[in-house]
């Protein structure tokens, strides 16, 4: 068997893959160092000294807490909406064949296939035309629109893997549609939905491009960070917030991974 001998990768490939992974991770690790630096006025490297005082400074900042609260609220509601819409759509597309099925998949993917700025400016001008004042709800409207696709992708992949004969068996045994849904379909797709929901939450929590157009005076956490990026005022606080954001977004990603790792690797796959 020629391929048994090739179980080990060539040195060149290993180095290329390793460097690629390092390129992906080192910049994020750098953030962790900067959160402890004593330097206030510049991005000087190496840090002159280390301190933990910025953590308490950040903790006592009401604007950071407000932004965080708004982000969590927006992400939670958008995720809920996206989970309902995405699951319904996935069920329809995966279980039945109908005219325009391809168009529906395209419609779901479009909000993230098109650049975010287009979604953002389109929604903004629509709100202006319809005289809808900007509020937390206009932010949610935008976020839910592009979160649908994440839930949809996870659900549709799981629906495809769930064999139709299970459902037929349930029906044969006398269960009606809702009993089948509750006892057969939901347990089968549950973890995929949860994973999709977590990713949708992470997506919404982090979104900035569409949000700049659909938010009025409110600042979500990404908007707060963007202002700091464009006009740095409190670099140490920004460093700490950046580090916390990294840690917080890791949790749903790890969760989604553990929920979907048995068998299918589709969690955030865009699959």
């Amino acid at each position: 068997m020629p391929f048994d001998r090739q179980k080990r990768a060539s040195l060149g490939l290993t180095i290329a893959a390793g460097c690629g992974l390092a390129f992906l991770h080192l910049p994020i690790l750098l953030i962790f160092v900067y959160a402890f630096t004593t330097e206030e006025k510049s991005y000087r490297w190496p840090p002159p000294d280390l301190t933990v005082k910025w953590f308490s400074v950040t903790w006592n900042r009401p604007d950071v807490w407000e932004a965080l609260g708004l982000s969590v609220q927006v992400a939670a509601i958008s995720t809920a909406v996206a989970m309902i819409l995405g699951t319904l759509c996935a069920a329809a597309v995966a279980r039945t064949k109908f005219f325009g099925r391809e168009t529906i998949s395209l419609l779901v993917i479009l909000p993230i296939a098109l650049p975010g700025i287009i979604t953002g400016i389109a929604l903004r001008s629509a709100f202006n035309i319809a005289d809808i004042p900007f509020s937390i709800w206009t932010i949610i409207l935008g976020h839910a629109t592009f979160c649908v696709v994440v839930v949809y992708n996870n659900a549709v992949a799981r629906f495809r893997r769930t064999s139709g004969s299970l459902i037929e068996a349930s029906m044969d045994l006398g269960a009606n549609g809702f009993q089948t849904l509750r006892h057969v379909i939901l347990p089968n797709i549950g973890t995929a939905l949860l994973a999709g929901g977590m990713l949708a939450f992470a997506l919404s929590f982090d979104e900035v491009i569409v949000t700049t157009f659909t938010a009025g005076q409110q600042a979500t956490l990404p908007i707060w960070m963007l202002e700091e990026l464009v006009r740095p005022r409190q670099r140490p606080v920004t460093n700490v917030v950046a580090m916390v954001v990294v840690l917080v977004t890791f949790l749903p990603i790890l969760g989604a991974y553990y929920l979907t790792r048995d068998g299918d690797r589709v969690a955030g796959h865009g699959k």
Partner: protein
Amino acid sequence: MTVLAPAILPPGGGVLARLSDLFWRRPSVLLAVLLGPPVLWLGVIYLGSLLALLAQSFFSIDEFSGLIQYEWTLKTYGELLHPANLDIILRTVLMAATVTLAAAVIAFPIAYYAARYARGRWKALFYLGIMLPLWSSYLVKVYAWKLILAKEGILNWIFAKLHMTWLLDAVLGIPVIGGNSLSVSYIGTFLVFLYVWLPFMILPVQAALERVPVSLLEASADQGGGPRQTFRHVTFPLALPGVIAGSIFTFSLTLGDYIIPQIVGSSRLFIGQAVYAHQGTAGNIPLAAAFTVVPIVIMGFYLWGAKRMGAFDAL
């Protein structure tokens, strides 16, 4: 529990059971119930606003009063052809193409290793190693690069420690792509784009590589194909749809981004920034709308081509 169930069940009682029977007998009703809410949401809110935006691109702005004239005209599209605006479009497309190519080159070894050689625990590590950067905050990633590329930052420090500052200066001295420092040059913008979108390329390539059956590679080897030949004639063609699928993301995301070039890069505009500037302070919604049509048209052609190459099955 009845032991002897009748062969044909009596119709169930209750609203739910009757509803369930209705869905069974008329699948189209079920389909309408399932599809109704998402299609209404996406069709009305999303497509509605998109079309409203496109419609505005056919209006024009009065040069003296600055007010929008609600008459159908192609004048705004004509403005896109001004050399300054053509420059913006060309610059953005070139950047998107370069970023896509570089992402494909860097992504391929990672994806290949993950798909072919990583096993068990390593496989999981690789997977998370790609997922975590993919999903970590976009702004934090951009911020990290602002730290790295800053004049007093780590990259300049490394070059200085290695006594290679001359090399950095030489690279920055290249006309057009260079600049005063990395954080205000196209090289900086390119690096950040590449970093931020790279995971979007790795995942589809890896998925495509994992679907290449080992038996095909063995067959190629059995017939005398060396590793190089097998790669060129078997592995790569089969992975190509994955590369194209990934390129959809890297290309489209670069086309529409306006935050990265604003934070890291020269002051010359990209399409996204032009849209942002025209709709914001300038209040020239028609021209902003016309500018958004450019990426839509480019992506339309791109997706059409990608579909023909079978990239959608690799998504």
